[in-house]
């Protein structure tokens, strides 16, 4: 019944799910997980405060990827940041501009922003053009953002999600426009550009821990603890696998292929 070659992956998923839900259950029963300080997330508050003081807008983008692709978790993680940023903008009266490149992402983004303003009791303050669809072509989208950053004098540019070739184009335009910039992606080819240009960067899997960090919700912190367990197991397997491969013992490699 299990497809050959996917048995180990299936078991890994079951174990990881068990650990994540186990940690969430512990958190529900009162155990408090600690999370290390993530500078980029502290920077998020700094960026929102800067825009508020300057009376200028905040721009948020999750990149060009669609929700209906295998990269959807990046976009979903990004929407959790957007939910936080929109809530803060609603409560502080700061203008938010969220741009999207895909139709399906547009629907989700609009819902997240609208819900955040509703939660803050500021639905009437939500501008009609807060969420903008710019087009799904990579450079159409990138040039659209560039125009917004410069014309609307954006104070803070937040680029958290799945970023590809447009990374450098958008972030360098943001730098030239004098924006305070926060970047975040787990695309290893684009991280260097963010590191070079942005004020703060979420590196790799930090992207998936942000929601828990910002909310300090015990259940979400529990999920992050479970996630960390998965990473620790992967690290141990890498070390053991390297040693066994050096000794020409294919046991672990065969197990992973099973």
């Amino acid at each position, binding site marked *: *019944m*299990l*497809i050959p070659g996917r048995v180990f992956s299936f078991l890994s*998923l079951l174990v*990881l799910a068990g650990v*994540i839900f186990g940690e*969430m259950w512990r958190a529900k029963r009162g155990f408090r997980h600690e999370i290390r300080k993530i500078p980029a997330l502290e920077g998020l508050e700094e960026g929102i405060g800067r825009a508020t003081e300057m009376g200028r807008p905040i721009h948020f983008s999750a990149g060009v990827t669609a929700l*209906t692709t295998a990269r959807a*978790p990046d976009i*979903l*993680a990004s*929407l959790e940041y957007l*939910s936080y940023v929109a809530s803060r903008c609603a409560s502080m009266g700061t203008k938010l501009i969220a741009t*999207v490149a*895909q*139709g*399906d992402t*547009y*629907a*989700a983004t609009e819902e*997240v922003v*609208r*819900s955040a303003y*509703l*939660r803050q009791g500021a639905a009437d303050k939500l501008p*009609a*053009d807060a*969420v*903008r*669809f710019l*087009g*799904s072509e990579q*450079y159409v989208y990138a*040039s659209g953002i560039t125009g917004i950053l410069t*014309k609307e004098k954006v104070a803070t540019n937040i680029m958290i999600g799945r970023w590809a*070739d447009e990374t*450098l*184009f958008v972030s*360098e335009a943001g*730098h030239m426009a004098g924006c305070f910039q926060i970047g975040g992606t*787990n695309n*290893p080819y684009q*991280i260097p*550009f963010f590191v*070079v*240009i942005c004020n703060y960067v979420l*590196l*790799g*899997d930090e*992207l*998936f821990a942000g*929601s828990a960090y910002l*909310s300090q*919700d015990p259940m*979400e912190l529990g*999920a992050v603890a479970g*996630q960390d367990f*998965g*990473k620790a197991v992967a690290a141990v397997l*890498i070390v053991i696998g390297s040693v066994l491969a050096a000794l020409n013992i294919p046991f672990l490699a065969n197990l992973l292929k099973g």
Partner: protein
Amino acid sequence: MATRISRAVLLVAGLGVTLDFFLKFPPLNTAISTIMAWIPLIVSFSVIIGGINVVLIHKDNIAKKKREWLYSLVLLAFFAITLFVGLTQGVSSETYNVLYYRILVVCGNSLSGILAFFIASSAFRAFRANNLEAALLLVAGAAVMLGQVPFGVLLWKGFPALSDWIMNYPNLAAQRGILIASGVGFMAVSLRLIFGYSKIQGSSE
């Protein structure tokens, strides 16, 4: 109520697609193939919503004569022309191809070309040895660049090999570390979402 229904749909669809990847069970595999075939349909509808958003925003720019409203006019004109040509002549017609390949793609490629200058300006800022990490970046970056250009070989024949070693060992190891950790994060986010523990679900409740 609507949120509960959407959560139930998400749970069933999420678990179904996940199990479909691992199990050979024809009733499930057929059902999931059918559901997956709905995706283009849903995406098409959402693109229409996006298109309406574009029209509304730029119509407003023109009506209120906002800054650079002429660009909005050009955008709406091309939007209308492309839509008209696509609907009347089809997306394979010569006119549509002119609009797409001779205008849109060319403009995109031109913007892509600007990246070379952006790389130069960002590299200029990055390659300043302010601290140990920046100094290492500077040395590694310089070695990789010199390994990729003929001038580097003239300076020292070992640059290509050094460049390859940096790219294939330290660089690749770091990239794989990021990918593996992200993979675990992927699973965690997906599980939280499928089982209804994500902050973005039911946020309007």
